């Protein structure tokens, strides 16, 4: 279904923008992808997201929608063709939203801190937090999937999108630290899920390459370190 009034202000490096792209792809929607460098932020971005000045922003007939979780639900509610991103049952929907929030809070937060951490002790604690989150997600997956390939069942759902969007950054963290976090021995279900997710037509081709992202991450670390030094 062709759609010419959709614009996504995104960035190839942004897992949050990736979430929106996956949702749009799942619904078979055409959209114009506007790559933001964030340095500087475009006028369109500043106008469209005056509250946070962040990507992603979805513009639908020039009306902006901000915050990835909000955008994904908007897409699901506006384009009601299959697949449904949120489950139809109210309790399952609550469960999907619960885990989606959990991922932003308990998975992304230590992941981001790990990127910046230099101290071995601090890193150890952060890896511990990520491993605990993984255990919970493995359990959540087993309950939600009911033997099917995705958290959403037969097709990608809200939790898949929320969690899967971080897979490339997870590989970067693993590379940088020379250790596996998502381990097939410890998290067999999630390890399988990650492969299935990455191979899905809605996802394949838009996941950033680990090496390219690693380069980007290293540059970001230097930038943050310089800013921190200046602030002292």
């Amino acid at each position, binding site marked *: 279904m062709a759609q010419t009034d959709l614009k996504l202000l995104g960035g190839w490096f942004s897992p949050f923008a990736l979430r929106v792209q996956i949702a749009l792809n799942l619904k078979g929607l055409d959209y114009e992808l506007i790559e933001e460098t964030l340095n500087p932020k475009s006028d369109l971005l500043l106008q469209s997201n005056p509250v946070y000045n962040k990507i992603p922003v979805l513009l639908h007939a020039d009306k902006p929608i901000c915050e990835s*979780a909000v955008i994904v639900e908007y897409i699901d509610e506006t384009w009601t063709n299959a697949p449904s991103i949120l489950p139809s049952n109210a309790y399952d929907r609550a469960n999907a939203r619960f885990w989606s929030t959990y991922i932003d809070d308990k998975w992304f937060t230590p992941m981001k801190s790990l990127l910046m951490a230099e101290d071995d002790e601090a890193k150890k604690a952060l890896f511990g937090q990520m491993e605990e989150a993984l255990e919970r997600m493995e359990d959540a997956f087993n309950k939600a999937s009911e033997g099917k390939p995705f958290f959403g069942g037969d097709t990608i759902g809200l939790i898949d999108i929320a969690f899967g969007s971080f897979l490339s950054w997870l590989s970067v963290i693993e590379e940088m630290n020379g250790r596996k976090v998502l381990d097939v021995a410890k998290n067999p279900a999630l390890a399988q899920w990650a492969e299935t997710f990455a191979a899905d037509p809605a996802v394949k081709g838009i996941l950033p390459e680990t090496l390219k992202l690693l380069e980007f991450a290293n540059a970001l670390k230097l930038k943050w370190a310089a800013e921190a030094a200046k602030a002292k």
Partner: protein
Amino acid sequence: MADEVILLDFWPSPFGMRLRIALAEKGIKYEYREEDLRNKSPLLLKMNPVHKKIPVLIHNGNPICESLVALQYIDEVWNHEAPLLPSDPYQRAQARFWADFIDKKIYDLGRKIWTEKGEEKEAAKKEFIGALKLLEEQLGDKAYFGGDNLGFVDVALIPFYTWFKGYAAFGNVDIDAECPKFIAWAKKCMQKESVSKSVPDQDKVYEFIVEIRKKLGIE
């Protein structure tokens, strides 16, 4: 077919208040259970093993955690009356955005106002008033964020008004003067029975804050 609805809560929690208001708006009978957060009940630990926090809504034995998640659940299940979210997807997105904004800003900034000192406190105050002003802009000329009736954002936001006496006193900030439109909206909400019967007095919350500050050793 009788629904069994239990709310595990803590009386000064703005997050718990959200659910009390929503349940009242929809005329849903429920059992309120007060939790002692220093001695959490086995039921709470069982129903919210991930965060061990209140509020937890338990519907026919099934737990729903996280107040905004539970708010949407209440709205979807008991959709016969008092809809909280609008039907238009774009307006729903706006409501969700602002509820999320409230979660990101109001509680943490408010907390900093009554726990921090000096520069940190001043910065939090400034950002807090800024957030209220942004919300005032969103309200515009409407009676409520939800239009003619209480909506998702109203329910998400009004509980924090019960903490304002504390914020104003310990933050040394005249919220009435800085954000008169916000205060007018809040007072209008408080005139609704579903709100006034669901939330504690500002004075009671203020005393609670005084107690905590003592316990935390804040002067």
